[in-house]
C-alpha cells in the first residue's frame, strides 16, 4: 500500500520532491494522548464521528439532557473565548432553548435532527433576536427584524443558535483581522490567524465552542478558515442554500456554507439549510442533498461508515479524481504541497483513479474575482448611508451625512474594495474591467465543466499555506489576496467544494492543519460528502483537535 505513496503514478511524479519527505499525516501529530476530547473516541487517532448523530442518540436515550450539553459547550465557550474571540455575541437564550428541547423529550414529542445541537452563526447572517453586524461599525447594534432562511431552518430542526461569530468586515478579508470589533485567534496557535472571512465560525467549531457553524463563502471564506483551523468546511453550489438574510458582499458569488468537526456533521447541517426559497430568486429548485428526518436521522452516506476495513475494499474504486496542476505549482508552500500529495496517495489507496488536470484559466481567476466581487460590493454596500438604520453621523447637510456615516462606519479594507468596485463600474472602465472579468468567469466555468466531465471530483489544496501569524499580511493586501488563489475560481464557477483536514505542517506548538479541497460538479454535494467521509474515516494517524482544547480546557 505504501508503495503507491513512494512510487506515485508517473503523471503525478512532478509534484513530488526528489527526496520523499515523510507524509505529515503519517506523522502522529504532537498531541498528548491523555487530553480530554469532545468526541469520546476510544483512541486518539480514531476517525471523527458525527457529533450531531451522537447528540441525537444521547438525547433520545436519555443519557444526557440538552441542558447539560448546552452547559458543557457554554462553559467551554466562555473559557476559550478570552483567547480566541470567536464570538461577537453570545445568545442569552441557549439554556432556555435547551430546556424546551428537554421538555419536548420528556413529553415524548418528536424533536428535530438538530435538537440540542449548538450552532454558531457568522455575524453577516441575520438573526432576529441577536445583533447582526457583519463585523462592521456601520451596523453596530443593528438587530434585523427577521431570521435568515438558513437560520430559520436551523431553528425549525431544533438547532440552538449559540451566538454570532466574528468575521472580516462584510466578509472582506482572509484573516478575520479586518473585523471592526476584535481579532480572532487560531485554536491551533493563538498567535496565528484563523483564516477568513468566516474565521470565527471555523475557530469556534475547531475549539468545540459549538458543534457546527454557519459561514459564508464568497471567495473561499469557508474553505480557507476550515483549512487553517483543521475543521471540515463545505461551500455548497451557488443556489443550493438560500441567501435570504445573508448580508450581501458579492451577490453572484456569496453562498452560505457549513463547518463541522466531521464530514457527516457538515453534511447534516447542509441538508438542514438547503433547498429552494421563494425569498431568494437565485436559489435553486434542485432537490435537497440528503434527506434527514427524525425517524431516519442517518444520512444515506453514513451508512457506508465502516472504518479501516473500507480501506481494504477500495471503496472509491473507479472514482475519477483530477488533481488541478495549477494549484500545486509555484507559490504553494512545500509542506502544504506534500501533505496534499499525501492525500492524493490516500485517495489512490481507496481505489480512486487519479489524473492531472490543467485549468489554463486558473490564474485569471484571482483578478477576475477581485474585480467582480469589488464591483458588486460597491453596489451592495450603498445601502449603508446612515439614513434608515445603522450608525448615522451627525451632519449639517446630506452629503456630509452620507460621507461621514460611511467614513466612520466602514473599515479600510471595505473602503478599498468599494473604491475598486466603483472604479471598475465607472463609465469608460466598465468594458475593460467588469465586462472582461465576466468573460474570464465564463472561461473558468467552461474549463471546470470540461474537467468535471472527465472527472468525478477535482482536488487541490484549500490554501497555498497553513495559518500564518496575526499581522503578517495585514499591510500587504496583495499577499493576502493571493492566498485566495485556490478558492476563488470555485466561486466564479458556482461549484460545490468540500475542504477537510488531511494532515499537518510544522508550525505552532503542535503543528498546523492543512486542508484538502475537493471540487464537484454543480449540485453534486452528495458525492463530495461521500468521498470526504470515506477519506476522513480512513485517514490514519491524524486527529484534528487543537491544543487549546487539549490544554486543559475542561469538557
Amino acid at each position, binding site marked *: 500500500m505504501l508503495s503507491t505513496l513512494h512510487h506515485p503514478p508517473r503523471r503525478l511524479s512532478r509534484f513530488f520532491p526528489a527526496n520523499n519527505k515523510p507524509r505529515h499525516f503519517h506523522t502522529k501529530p504532537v498531541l498528548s494522548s491523555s487530553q480530554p476530547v469532545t468526541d469520546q473516541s476510544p483512541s486518539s487517532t480514531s476517525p471523527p464521528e458525527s457529533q450531531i448523530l451522537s447528540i441525537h442518540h444521547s438525547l433520545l436515550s436519555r443519557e444526557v439532557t440538552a441542558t447539560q450539553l448546552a452547559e458543557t459547550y457554554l462553559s467551554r465557550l466562555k473559557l476559550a473565548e478570552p483567547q480566541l474571540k470567536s464570538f461577537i455575541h453570545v445568545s442569552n437564550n441557549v439554556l432556555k432553548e435547551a430546556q424546551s428541547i428537554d421538555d419536548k423529550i420528556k413529553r415524548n414529542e418528536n424533536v428535530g435532527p438538530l435538537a440540542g445541537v449548538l450552532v454558531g452563526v457568522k455575524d453577516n*447572517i*441575520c438573526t432576529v433576536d441577536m445583533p*447582526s453586524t*457583519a463585523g462592521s461599525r456601520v*451596523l453596530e447594534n*443593528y438587530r*434585523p*427584524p*427577521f431570521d*435568515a432562511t438558513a437560520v430559520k431552518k436551523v431553528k425549525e430542526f431544533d438547532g440552538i443558535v449559540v451566538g454570532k461569530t466574528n468575521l472580516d468586515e462584510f466578509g472582506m478579508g482572509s484573516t478575520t483581522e479586518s473585523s471592526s470589533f476584535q481579532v480572532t485567534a487560531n485554536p491551533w496557535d493563538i498567535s496565528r490567524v484563523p483564516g477568513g472571512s468566516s474565521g470565527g465560525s471555523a475557530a469556534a467549531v475547531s475549539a468545540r465552542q459549538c458543534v457546527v457553524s454557519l459561514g459564508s463563502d464568497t471567495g473561499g471564506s469557508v474553505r480557507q478558515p476550515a483549512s487553517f483551523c483543521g475543521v471540515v468546511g463545505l461551500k455548497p453550489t451557488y443556489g443550493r442554500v438560500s*441567501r*435570504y*438574510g*445573508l*448580508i*450581501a458582499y*458579492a*451577490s*453572484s458569488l456569496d453562498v452560505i456554507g457549513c463547518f463541522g468537526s466531521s464530514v457527516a456533521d457538515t453534511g447534516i447541517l447542509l441538508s438542514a439549510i438547503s433547498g429552494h426559497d*421563494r*425569498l*431568494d*430568486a*437565485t436559489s435553486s429548485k434542485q432537490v435537497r442533498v440528503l434527506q434527514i428526518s427524525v425517524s431516519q436521522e442517518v444520512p444515506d452516506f453514513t451508512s457506508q461508515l465502516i472504518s479501516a476495513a473500507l480501506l481494504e475494499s477500495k471503496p472509491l474504486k473507479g472514482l475519477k479524481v483530477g488533481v488541478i496542476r495549477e494549484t500545486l505549482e509555484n507559490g504553494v508552500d512545500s509542506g502544504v504541497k506534500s501533505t496534499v500529495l499525501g492525500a492524493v496517495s490516500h485517495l489512490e489507496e481507496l481505489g480512486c483513479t487519479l489524473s492531472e488536470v490543467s485549468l489554463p484559466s486558473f490564474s485569471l481567476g484571482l483578478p477576475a474575482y477581485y474585480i467582480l466581487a469589488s*464591483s*458588486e460590493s*460597491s*453596489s451592495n*454596500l*450603498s*445601502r*449603508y*448611508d446612515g*439614513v*434608515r*438604520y445603522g450608525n448615522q453621523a451627525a*451632519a*449639517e*447637510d*446630506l452629503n456630509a*451625512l*452620507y460621507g461621514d456615516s460611511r467614513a466612520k462606519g466602514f473599515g479600510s479594507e471595505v473602503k478599498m474594495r468599494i473604491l475598486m468596485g*466603483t472604479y471598475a*463600474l*465607472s*463609465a469608460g472602465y*466598465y468594458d475593460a474591467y*467588469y465586462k472582461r472579468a465576466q468573460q474570464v468567469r465564463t472561461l473558468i466555468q467552461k474549463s471546470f465543466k470540461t474537467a468535471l466531465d472527465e472527472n468525478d471530483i477535482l482536488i487541490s489544496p484549500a490554501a497555498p499555506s497553513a495559518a500564518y501569524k496575526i499581522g503578517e499580511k495585514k499591510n500587504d493586501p496583495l499577499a493576502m489576496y493571493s492566498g485566495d488563489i485556490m478558492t476563488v475560481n470555485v466561486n466564479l464557477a458556482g461549484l460545490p467544494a468540500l475542504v477537510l483536514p488531511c494532515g499537518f505542517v510544522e508550525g505552532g506548538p503542535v503543528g498546523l492543519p492543512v486542508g484538502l479541497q475537493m471540487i464537484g460538479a454543480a449540485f453534486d454535494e452528495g458525492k463530495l460528502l461521500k468521498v470526504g467521509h470515506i477519506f476522513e474515516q480512513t485517514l490514519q494517524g491524524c486527529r484534528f483537535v487543537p491544543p487549546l482544547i487539549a490544554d486543559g480546557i475542561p469538557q
Partner: protein
Amino acid sequence: MASFLFRTIQSHSFLLCPTTLLRRNNGAVYCSMKSTHTQTATQEKQQPPPKIKSSPQGNQAKTRTLDRISKEYEAIIGIETHVQLSTLTKAFCTCPYNYGAQPNTSVCPICMGLPGALPVVNSKVVEFAVKLGLALNCKLSFNSKFDRKQYFYPDLPKGYQISQFDIPIATGGYLDVDLPVEYGGGHRRFGITRVHMEEDAGKLLHADDGEYSQEITFPIIYALQVDLNRAGVPLLEIVSEPDMRTGLEAAEYAAELQRLVRYLGVSNGNMQEGSLRCDVNVSIRPVGQSKFGTKVEIKNLNSFSSINRAIDFEIARQALLYSQGKADQIVQETRLWEEGSQKTVTMRKKEGLADYRYFPEPDLPEVILNKEYVDSIQSSLPELPEMKRRRYEEMGLSMQDVLFLANDINVARFFDATIGKGADVKLAANWIMGDIAAHMKNEKLTINEIKLSAAELAELIASIKGATISGKIGKELSHLCESFTGYFSSTPFPHILFELMAKGGTVNGIIKEKDLIVDPSEIEKMVDKVFSENPKQLEQYRGGKTKLQGFFAGQVMKISKGKANPGLLNKILLEKLNAKS
C-alpha cells in the same frame, strides 16, 4: 391655415389669459358637454380630462409673434413616461401599495433595503410589460435582464434602483394618435424607443406638512422625512422617439398612452396620484438645420394641459433666446413647470452625464420569455383605442363622436354593448354623448355607476324607434334633464331614461308601472270616442282648420287621464283625422 392658427394660438393662450380655460361653444349639439366631460368612467374623479384644455382665443399681436416662431424654428419633443402598474403587490416584494396610506405602513425588509433582504420579481410586472410592449407595437426582448442604476438619495433605500439598462423588455414600437377635431384633427404616429421595467423610489416628506417629491438641497436635513410606501412599486418607463413638434401633440401622445394603459388594465393612469408621470425633453432648431439644439428636460407636469402649456412656454422661451442671439444661454438642464406662474424655471443644471454605474442585477435571474407566453398575452389583448376608433369610424360615426366614445374604455364598452343589443349606432352615440354624459357629469358618476344598463338603453332606443313610446318624450324631455328631479314626479310622462339611470329597472317595467297606454287599439277607441263627442270640430278640421289637431289630442289625453303615449296618440289621431270617412 386654420389648424396652424389653432396650434399657435392655443399653444400660448396661457400667456394671454392664464386663468381662463374657456369652454368652447361651437354649436354642435353635444359639444359643450363633451369638452369638459371626458373622464367619465375613470375611478379617480380628480383626474383631469385627457382632452387638452386650452383656449383657441388669442391676442392678434401675440399670435403674429408665435406665428413667426413656428415659421422660423422647429421644436423637437420627446417624452419619458413612467407608468405605475396596478399590480396587487410591489415589484420585488409582497407589500401592497395603496395611494394615500399613512407613511411607511406598506413596507417590509425588502422594499426598505434592509441588510440581507433580496428582491424577487413579481411575475405580473413582466406580464404587464409584455402587454404594453405588444400594445405599443414593439419588438420584445425574449431574453432581457434587470440592472442596477446606482445613485445616492434618501428616498432610494438600497442606494440603487432596480431597472433595465441595455436590454429593455420592449423596443422599437409606435403609438397612433388622433388629434382633436377642434384643433384641426389629423392622425399622427409617434415612435416608441423603448419600454423597460423598474421600481419606484420612496417620497421625501417635509417634517411639518406636505410631501415634497422634487429634488432639493438640504440645508437642514432633519426637517425631512422619508416615506417608503412607494419604494419598490413597479413602473414601466416608456421612452418616445423625439417625434412631437408641439405641446398639443405631446399632450395628446400622453393622453393616448393613458388611454392605452387603462384599456390594457395595467395602470389607473392617474396623473394626480403620480401613476402616470411625464418628463419631456424640448429643444428647438432653426427650420432647415439638421443638428439638434440643446435639449432641456421639464419635470413636474401633472396634467395634460400642463404638458401642453409647459412645452409651448419652453419653445417660446428658447425661441426668444435664439432670436436675441443668446442661443448659448440654452443649456442642458432640468426645468420645473410652475403651475402658479405658468413658467418653467431652472431646477438643476446638469454637469456632464451622471454616471449611474449600471451593471446586471446579480440578485435576479434573467427575464426569459417564451413564444407561447407572449402569444397567449397577444391573444388576450383587448381591442385597443386605435382599433376602436378605426372601427367606429367605419361604422359611420363622425370623428368627434369617435374620439368621444373611444376616449374612455368604460364608455366605449357601454356603447359597444348597446349597439351589440341591436341599437342604432348613431342614436346610441347621441344618447350616450348627450343625456347620459350630462347626467354623469351632474351627478359626478361614472358610466359604470349609473343604473342604466346597455341592454335597457338599447331597448329604450328600440322602443322610441318603434314608437312604443314617444321619441319626443325621449328627446325633448331629456333636455329638461337639468331640473329633472323636480320635473320627474310631476310629469305625466315619466322620463324613462332618467328613471333608468337613477333607479335602474327595465324599459317595459317602467312603461307598465306608469301604466302608459301603448296599445294602439285602445288609443283608437279613445280617438273614436272623441270624434263622436265632437262632430263639429271634426267637421271644421276636415274643412281645413288643421290647428284643431291639438284640441283633439288634448281631448284624447284627457280621456286617457294623461296616460296615452303621445307619439302613438298623434300618429293614430292624424291617421284618423285625415282618413276619408
